[in-house]
């Protein structure tokens, strides 16, 4: 066999152990490696390229880590050919996985400090491993808060996990939706409305923000207005990715290859780039 492109462009086979519906168009997939040991351990915020036979690949954040004592979980929204094919897979189907790629949420650097997690919509998926990690090492962190906004009550992700977290005494968890019928009984409004009532020390806190870019911009602005430092506020950016190894050119934002130096960035690194429209 002759030489080809780097080995890492060949996926590893993973069997779909379980698939369940989270919301109308969002599914979670639990995957287990077939045969060999599986891919290297990932860090919160990283992503894998998931491959559906005959259709292609999509970059999907890891939303559940095997290190936490469970299968590899990816939460996928069915918006295009590949993601639809992934969401239509059935237990036993073999998918391709390669990774993990990208930068991760700096959970180590946040030790000893307050942690504020701000999530919008499906942005909660790449942040769930942060919550899992922080809860598993709860005494290493000071105050921990999660505020989460979704479109409607039916679009709230990981509802049972949210309720579990919310019932703890050592976590501040608040959820809101953009609109609701009367049965909701919870907050209605934008996620940034929840920030004023989050107690944290702006001089010694780390914030992790993930969601649609508009939502992230306003949430970051509110955090900075309150006094947080742009070096301590981290965002996860979305760009078109095809190779995930910084060679296909699609994910560029200015000089950054988002699949390599990102998708998680401290806000101070990307704020000048985000400020230029359509960059």
């Amino acid at each position, binding site marked *: 066999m002759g030489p080809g492109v780097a080995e890492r462009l060949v996926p590893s086979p993973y069997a779909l152990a379980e698939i369940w519906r989270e919301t109308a168009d969002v599914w979670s997939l639990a995957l287990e490696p077939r045969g060999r040991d599986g891919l290297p351990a990932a860090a919160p915020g990283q*992503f894998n390229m998931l491959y559906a036979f005959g259709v292609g690949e*999509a970059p999907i954040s890891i*939303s559940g880590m095997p290190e936490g004592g469970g299968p590899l979980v990816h939460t996928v929204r069915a918006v295009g050919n590949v993601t639809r094919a992934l969401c239509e897979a059935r237990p036993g189907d073999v998918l391709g996985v390669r990774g993990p790629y990208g930068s991760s949420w700096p959970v180590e650097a946040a030790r000893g400090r307050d942690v504020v997690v701000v999530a919008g919509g499906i942005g909660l998926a*790449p942040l769930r491993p942060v919550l899992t990690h922080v809860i598993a090492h709860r005494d290493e962190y000071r105050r921990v808060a999660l505020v989460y906004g979704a*479109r409607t009550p039916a679009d709230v992700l990981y509802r049972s996990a949210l309720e579990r977290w919310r019932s703890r005494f050592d976590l501040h968890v608040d959820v809101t939706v*953009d609109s609701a*019928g009367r049965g909701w009984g919870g907050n209605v409004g934008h996620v940034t409305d929840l920030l004023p009532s989050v107690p944290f020390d702006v001089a010694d806190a780390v914030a992790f923000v993930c969601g649609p870019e508009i939502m992230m911009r306003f949430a970051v602005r509110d955090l900075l207005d309150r006094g947080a430092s742009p070096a301590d506020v981290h965002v996860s950016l979305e760009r078109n990715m095809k190779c995930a190894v910084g060679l296909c050119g699609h994910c560029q934002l200015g000089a950054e290859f988002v699949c390599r130096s990102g998708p998680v960035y401290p806000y101070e690194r990307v704020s000048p780039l985000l400020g230029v429209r359509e960059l």
Partner: protein
Amino acid sequence: METRSLDELLGEHNFFEGMDPRYLTFIAGCGRNVAFHPGAWIARDGDAADSFYAIRHGQVAIEVHSPRTGALVIQTLGDGAVLGWSWLFPPYRWHFDVRAVEPTRAVQFDGTCLRGKCDDDPAMGYEFMKRFARVLTRSLEATRLQLLDVYGEERAPAGAAATEERPLGPRGG
């Protein structure tokens, strides 16, 4: 149980934080303590709007009713929020339904009284209106973000599919 004066209570409320205590006493003259059980109506669409509320504790829902959607909650307000702007301008009518969701304690201000005091003491009135305008701008901003339906067209995390939108023809697109 120790009762506290209304101006003391106001001084603890978000909206009035840092306001000159003389103004607080002046404004407190228009206010009284109220409480609502869960489910109680605070206002109905079309009612005379002559009240401004400073919510001390609890949660209220601002709702709109339409034949198509039934009752739709468009915003909830909690501790430290203020409710009502229809008392500022004629015809002084509520445009939404407002209902208590949780047991709620608030200070209710009489609109006519409040407007009169702002006229009498323009300096105080200006101070009041500045704070009020701030509340309105933040509310407008949040409303705009809700309107944008930012989660509606949203992504699968970390990017879109590698071969999205390419037809699977003989050449694969």
